[in-house]
């Protein structure tokens, strides 16, 4: 059988050679003569060629070869022929049974190669003519035959070649190079299985045999030297995008984890890395499965696959579709988060989760749950335990070490940059306040009761106080937890403030003592410290004043107040300059201790101090006026003792007295109305509003705000605000004038008393000696005493004194009127509606409004007329 076949082959080859040679255009007129030497050599050559290649270099897959042939035709623009070819092939392939061609793939392949050879031969016809040498050597011949043929041709075409090469050297080099490249490519043809395996490697970030990371192009690519169809190489590149993304994600993770803990990426960053790592391990699982599958060889197109589990590039691209989406997302996140930390990172990821694609949405949801878990843990422990477990400064609440008194206001802040966008601003505020309340209770109030409140809150919110109770996407749970905790903790805090620390009582005490609400106490204090305060400020001892304060407390109803409250009341001397009197520097202060100094801060106490100073001055003026009244009551002076005076002097005395009293009355009207206004329209009204607000206050912030409002309204309404500065100044000018009036009035009454005493002495020298003894002693020391000068001189001096006093009073009264006019004219310009009531009160009878500034003299004349009538 073998023999027979061999013989058959030999015969056939012989025949073939004959046929070919007879066709050969080069063989010219030679008829094929079987015995000619050329024929013999050709035959031998043919045998050699055939025996040299026993196995084909491609897989025996007729369909694939036909497909590729067809594609080639199509790409050459011969699509109709391509169709015809395909049609013919199917017919050809369908011929089976006896008589048909058995080795169909070989036939098709043979045709293909011959056709390609012919085409190459045509296009490179020149090269074979021009360059027999190179052409034969490198490109045209097959591997094994090359040497032989080359040798044969070397000699024959040498002369030609040299000649032609020298004619066209550039072309030569170019052609030579192209052919060399073609040659290498032919040698490097790779099968799809290998490519698949390489791609799988690349997707794990490992360089494969052919697919390598190209750092200049920043991506995985097939090496250029490998001959694959363009479509394949594009597909490989597309698939390798996954590898590039993987490298990026993996790089971020290892960078972050290696840097930890020296480079603080924070707990959120760690959670993010861990979540990415988990995603990657899923991805590894997929790759492992794929790798196992890639071991199965790819069946040929014509075969039906024995097992479906093989991998081609196309299958791989389907497998990679989903991981590719995820990996892209991760890469985007990695890019985005590289510089972010903590809450900001969670917020950035959250923004990416707003996606319509359910796959993306779900994936991001999972990721965020992981990423946010440290953040929610922080929220939980902050809200329920007041612990700020934030080593890496990732939480949106930032604590800073401060003194206990400013813990509430400055101890904890919201850090806007770290606030993730899925937590609203108001919720963040509530979270901040709840934790702050707990800390406030713990630090300032030394209270332990909040723990129960927190536990209760957690139970009510349905979550336990254990860790990881909260998660991303459960914003309702978070909100209800925060709300519950806030409500309970705040309530507890207020309870502590009200009951344990007696906030209300302290407020009341401040109102009573600093705002001079306790009338009898103020009266006593004014009485006993008055003389002391008239001294220059630098001679006054504050210890003595403290003693006097104590006396005043004991003398008044204040003694029944709580000892704790009274202990906090202290005398304070303000810094003073030269020429200041005690009145200018004296003030009271109230020592609000922790925790109440959160409400009564230093600035608040400064405001209280200003209010106290104002009220104290007002009281002092009132006190002075009352003092005048005491000495100058009409029935004190107009006694019968003046009956004996000459009529002129008597009239003068009466008129002066009258004038003084009218002025006093006017001042008293002003001061008492102002006093009334301050007490009832300002202090009490503000206090009652404050009490109402205290009732409804839900947390300490509300309470602080209510107190601020209370204080602010007092300051504004009692002319201490910035806008009423000028009004305040003219008011103080009025006060000063009234005090001046007081000293004048004192002098007047003193003079009158003396006059009275003198008159009585002169008429009834023996009466009441003991009473006037002291006075006569004083008088005796004076050289020009009235008594020695007799009655006439007495009358004259009295007249002079009274005239002087009358003139002084006139000036005072004029000044007073103009100041008051000024004050009243400024009053309606105030914004505050309550000050209008003050104007209304002062000018109830429209007395002042009828007076124009130039009518002031009218007013005085009216007074004088009035006097003369009586």
């Amino acid at each position: 059988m073998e023999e027979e076949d061999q013989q058959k082959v030999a015969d056939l080859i012989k025949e073939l050679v004959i046929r070919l040679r007879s066709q050969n255009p080069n063989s010219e007129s030679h008829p094929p003569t079987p015995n000619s030497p050329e024929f013999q050599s050709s035959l031998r050559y043919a045998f050699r060629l055939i025996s040299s290649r026993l196995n084909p270099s491609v897989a025996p897959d007729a369909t694939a070869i036909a497909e590729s042939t067809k594609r080639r035709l199509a790409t050459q623009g011969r699509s109709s022929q391509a169709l015809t070819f395909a049609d013919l092939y199917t017919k050809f392939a369908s011929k089976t049974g006896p008589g048909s061609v058995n080795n169909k793939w070989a036939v098709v392949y043979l045709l293909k190669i011959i056709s390609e050879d012919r085409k190459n031969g045509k296009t490179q016809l020149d090269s074979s003519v021009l360059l027999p040498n190179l052409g034969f050597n490198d490109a045209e011949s097959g591997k094994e035959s090359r040497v032989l043929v080359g040798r044969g041709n070397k000699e024959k075409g040498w002369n030609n070649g040299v000649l032609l090469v020298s004619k066209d050297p550039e072309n030569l080099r170019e052609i030579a190079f192209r052919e060399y490249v073609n040659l290498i490519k032919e040698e490097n043809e790779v099968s799809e299985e290998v490519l698949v395996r390489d791609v799988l490697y690349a997707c794990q970030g490992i360089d494969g045999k052919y697919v390598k990371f190209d750092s200049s192009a920043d991506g995985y690519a097939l090496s250029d030297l490998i001959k694959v169809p363009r479509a394949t190489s594009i597909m490989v590149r597309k698939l390798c995008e996954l590898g590039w993304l993987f490298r990026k994600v993996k790089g971020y993770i290892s960078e972050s984890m290696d840097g930890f803990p020296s480079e603080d990426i924070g707990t959120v960053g760690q959670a993010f890395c861990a979540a990415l790592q988990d995603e990657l391990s899923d991805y590894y699982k997929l790759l492992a499965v794929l790798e196992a599958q890639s071991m199965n060889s790819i069946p040929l197109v014509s075969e039906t696959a024995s097992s479906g589990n093989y991998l081609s590039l196309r299958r791989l691209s389907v497998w990679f579709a989903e991981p590719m989406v995820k990996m892209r997302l991760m890469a985007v996140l990695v890019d985005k988060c590289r510089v972010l930390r903590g809450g900001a990172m969670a917020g950035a990821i959250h923004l990416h989760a707003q996606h319509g694609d359910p796959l993306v949405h779900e994936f991001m949801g999972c990721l965020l749950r992981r990423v946010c878990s440290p953040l929610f843990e922080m929220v939980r422990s902050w809200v329920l335990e007041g612990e700020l477990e934030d080593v890496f400064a990732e939480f949106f609440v930032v604590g800073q070490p401060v003194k206990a008194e400013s813990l509430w206001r400055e101890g904890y802040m919201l850090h806007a940059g770290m606030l993730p966008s899925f937590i609203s601003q108001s919720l963040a505020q509530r979270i901040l306040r709840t934790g702050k309340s707990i800390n406030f209770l713990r630090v300032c109030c030394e209270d332990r009761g909040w723990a129960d409140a927190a536990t209760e809150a957690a139970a009510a919110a349905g979550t336990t106080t254990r860790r990881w109770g909260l998660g991303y996407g459960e914003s309702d749970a978070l909100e209800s937890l925060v709300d519950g905790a806030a409500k309970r903790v705040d309530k507890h805090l207020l309870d502590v403030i009200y009951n344990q620390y007696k906030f209300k009582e302290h407020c009341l005490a401040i109102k009573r003592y600093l705002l001079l609400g306790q009338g009898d106490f103020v009266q006593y204090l004014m009485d006993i410290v008055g003389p002391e305060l008239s001294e220059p400020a630098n001679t006054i001892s504050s210890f003595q004043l403290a003693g006097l304060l104590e006396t005043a407390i004991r003398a008044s109803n204040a003694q029944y107040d709580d000892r704790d409250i009274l202990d906090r009341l202290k005398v304070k001397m303000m810094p003073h300059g030269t020429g200041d009197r005690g009145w200018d520097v004296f003030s009271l202060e109230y020592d609000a201790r922790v925790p109440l100094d959160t409400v009564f801060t230093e600035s608040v106490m400064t405001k209280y101090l200003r209010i106290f100073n104002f009220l104290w001055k007002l009281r002092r003026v009132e006190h002075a006026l009352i003092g005048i009244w005491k000495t100058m009551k009409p029935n004190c002076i107009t006694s019968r003792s003046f009956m004996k005076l000459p009529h002129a002097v008597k009239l003068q005395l009466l008129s002066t007295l009258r004038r003084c009293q009218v002025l006093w009355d006017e001042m008293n009207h002003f001061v008492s109305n102002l006093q009334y206004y301050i007490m009832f329209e300002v202090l009490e009204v503000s206090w009652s509003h404050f009490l109402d607000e205290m009732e409804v206050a839900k947390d300490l912030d509300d309470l602080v705000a209510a107190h601020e409002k209370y204080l602010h309204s007092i300051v504004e309404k009692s002319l201490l605000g910035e806008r009423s500065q000028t009004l305040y100044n003219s008011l103080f000018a009025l006060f000063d004038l009234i005090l001046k009036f007081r000293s004048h009035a004192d002098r007047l009454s003193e003079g009158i008393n003396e006059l009275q005493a003198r008159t009585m002495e002169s008429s009834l020298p023996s009466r009441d000696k003991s009473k006037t003894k002291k006075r006569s002693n004083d008088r005796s020391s004076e050289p020009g005493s009235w008594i020695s000068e007799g009655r006439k001189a007495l009358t004259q001096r009295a007249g002079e004194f009274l005239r002087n006093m009358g003139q002084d009073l006139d000036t005072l009264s004029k000044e007073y009127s103009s100041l008051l006019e000024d004050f009243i004219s400024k009053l309606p310009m105030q914004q505050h509606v309550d000050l209008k009531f003050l104007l209304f009160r002062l000018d109830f009878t429209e007395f002042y409004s009828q007076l124009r500034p130039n009518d002031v003299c009218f007013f005085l004349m009216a007074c004088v007329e009035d006097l003369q009538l009586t």
Partner: protein
Amino acid sequence: MDADAAKTARESLDLAFQMSNILDTGLDRHTLSILIALCDLGLNPEALAAVVKELRREPVPLPPSDAAGPVL
């Protein structure tokens, strides 16, 4: 060999010849039939193609080369 087989063989050859024409191989019917026969005998088509190519192009070798060439 019955008529059917002969018919099939002829048809196959026809088809192959048409394909060959489309591909512009320049082979005539007889040569093609020889090649198909050789393929059926299990020869490597690449080798056959090489033979076709070489012999077609081969210019008239010089008499001296005929002694040296094949001996190698």
